[in-house]
């Protein structure tokens, strides 16, 4: 039996093509993945991301616990509502998951983890909590639903849909959250566009969805979510990173705090391993479509595409690939597709931000 979010009926009403997504019955698209992609880039769209797991960490000493648990430094979180993107590593320096941590109070941090890894994450966090900070509590919040509203018009449409929300969220900076009653509004997202991720009690989710629909916010499926996030150059857990690869070889060095004296799980492994590979962007120069696991041939050795696909905004195929660090931006490499070698240029991602191409090829 597939798990359902509180918006399952709403997806079916909207004509969604539903698929089994890691045990969840989720919308792949509502007719056209491409149209949905463009709707988010040009106007606004909403995603049911209720399958992701919200976990509340509570108790005195929560910050110290997170400082031991997370590769990024939660001491960067000084302002209430501020969010931090971080990896949670195992002792070998592999990525257990990537997540977002919101600082609400010294005795309350809210963590959002991936759907597919939720059980594993909870077990890991719970084991560490019992060992390192037994007085803290970790509460999975399956009672909450989450809707991401993204696009250049996303904020204005959410404000129109939810009276009072503008006053409370207009001054939020990117990667910052606030509360409005039982709503939790964060200016975050996974598309490279402006917008909010809104958490609400599960039973209120269909109403919020409906009011957003009435404002002209298009429902967007998992298909477009993937092309949007790939263009935005955002890593996908299980493809661009996993437990077997260091975040330093997954394009996530910027999230790993190796400068402060703080120790954290996996730090020693990271500092003792050479970094031989990098995550780079690829832009296909020939005709075709890049896909994950295709082989990349460079002058410095082979690599592999970790996420590939068609970039609808660029009208060109793009990819993230793990390749030797010696390969410079701007270089042309070859990708093996069905026995043929096609040319691709190594670029610095993200590919698209705020609706426009932004990759660098020098």
């Amino acid at each position, binding site marked *: 039996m597939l798990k359902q979010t509180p918006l399952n009926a709403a997806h079916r009403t909207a004509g969604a093509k539903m698929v089994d997504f890691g045990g969840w019955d989720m919308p*792949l*698209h509502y007719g*056209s*993945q*491409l149209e949905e992609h463009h709707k988010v880039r040009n106007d606004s769209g909403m995603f049911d991301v209720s399958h992701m797991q919200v976990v509340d960490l509570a108790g005195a000493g929560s910050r110290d616990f997170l400082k031991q648990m997370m590769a990024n430094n939660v001491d960067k979180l000084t302002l209430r509502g501020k969010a931090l993107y971080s990896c949670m590593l195992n002792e070998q320096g592999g990525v257990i998951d990537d997540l977002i941590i919101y600082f609400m109070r010294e005795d309350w941090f809210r963590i959002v983890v991936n759907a597919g890894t939720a059980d594993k994450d909870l077990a890991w966090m719970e084991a560490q909590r019992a060992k390192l900070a037994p007085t803290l509590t970790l509460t999975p919040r399956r009672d909450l639903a989450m809707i991401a509203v993204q696009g250049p018009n996303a904020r204005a449409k959410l404000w129109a849909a939810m009276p009072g929300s503008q006053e409370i969220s207009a001054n939020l900076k990117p990667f910052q959250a606030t509360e409005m009653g039982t709503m939790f509004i964060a200016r975050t997202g996974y598309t490279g566009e402006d917008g909010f991720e809104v958490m609400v009690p599960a039973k209120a989710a269909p109403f919020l969805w409906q009011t957003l629909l009435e404002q002209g916010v298009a429902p967007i499926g998992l*298909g477009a979510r993937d092309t949007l996030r790939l263009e935005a150059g955002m890593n996908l857990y299980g493809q661009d990173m996993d437990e077997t690869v260091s975040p330093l070889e997954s394009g996530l060095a910027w999230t790993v705090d190796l400068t402060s004296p703080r120790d954290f799980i996996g730090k020693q492994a990271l500092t003792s391993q050479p970094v031989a590979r990098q995550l780079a962007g690829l832009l296909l120069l020939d005709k075709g*479509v890049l*896909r994950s696991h295709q082989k990349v041939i460079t002058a410095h050795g082979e690599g592999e595409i970790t996420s590939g*696909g068609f970039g*609808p905004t660029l009208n060109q195929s793009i990819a993230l690939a793990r390749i030797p660090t010696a390969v410079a931006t701007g270089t042309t490499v070859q990708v093996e597709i069905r026995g043929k070698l096609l040319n691709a240029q190594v670029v610095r991602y993200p590919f698209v931000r705020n609706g426009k191409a932004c990759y660098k090829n020098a």
Partner: protein
Amino acid sequence: MTIPADLKYTKSHEWARLEADGSVTVGITHHAQDLLGDMVFVENPVLGRKLTQGEECAVVESVKAASDVYAPIAGEVIAANADVEGAPEAINQDAYAAWMFKLKPDNAADLGSLLDAAAYQAIVDSEAH
């Protein structure tokens, strides 16, 4: 969409039409494009290539995935639709109009080994469950 009664079909979701000049036009079905979603790339076989029945000979790629296209019958490739290569979304718009390539069949009677519309409909129905 109804499955045209005047075409022949494969289990792997190609359609084939015998033309008045004896050639056979090939495309993928409406059901196939619906499963694959938005098309972004089409690679047709090169002209002159000799195909055996069931041979992998072309590729359609949607935003979601790449999918092989198989020769419904044996024959030589005598035409490839450049329009559909330039605008793969035509397959989404009308899969039975947006043909991919034409074959000169080794033996037109091979078409008899393919599914008729009713048999193909049964396959589509069974996949829906």
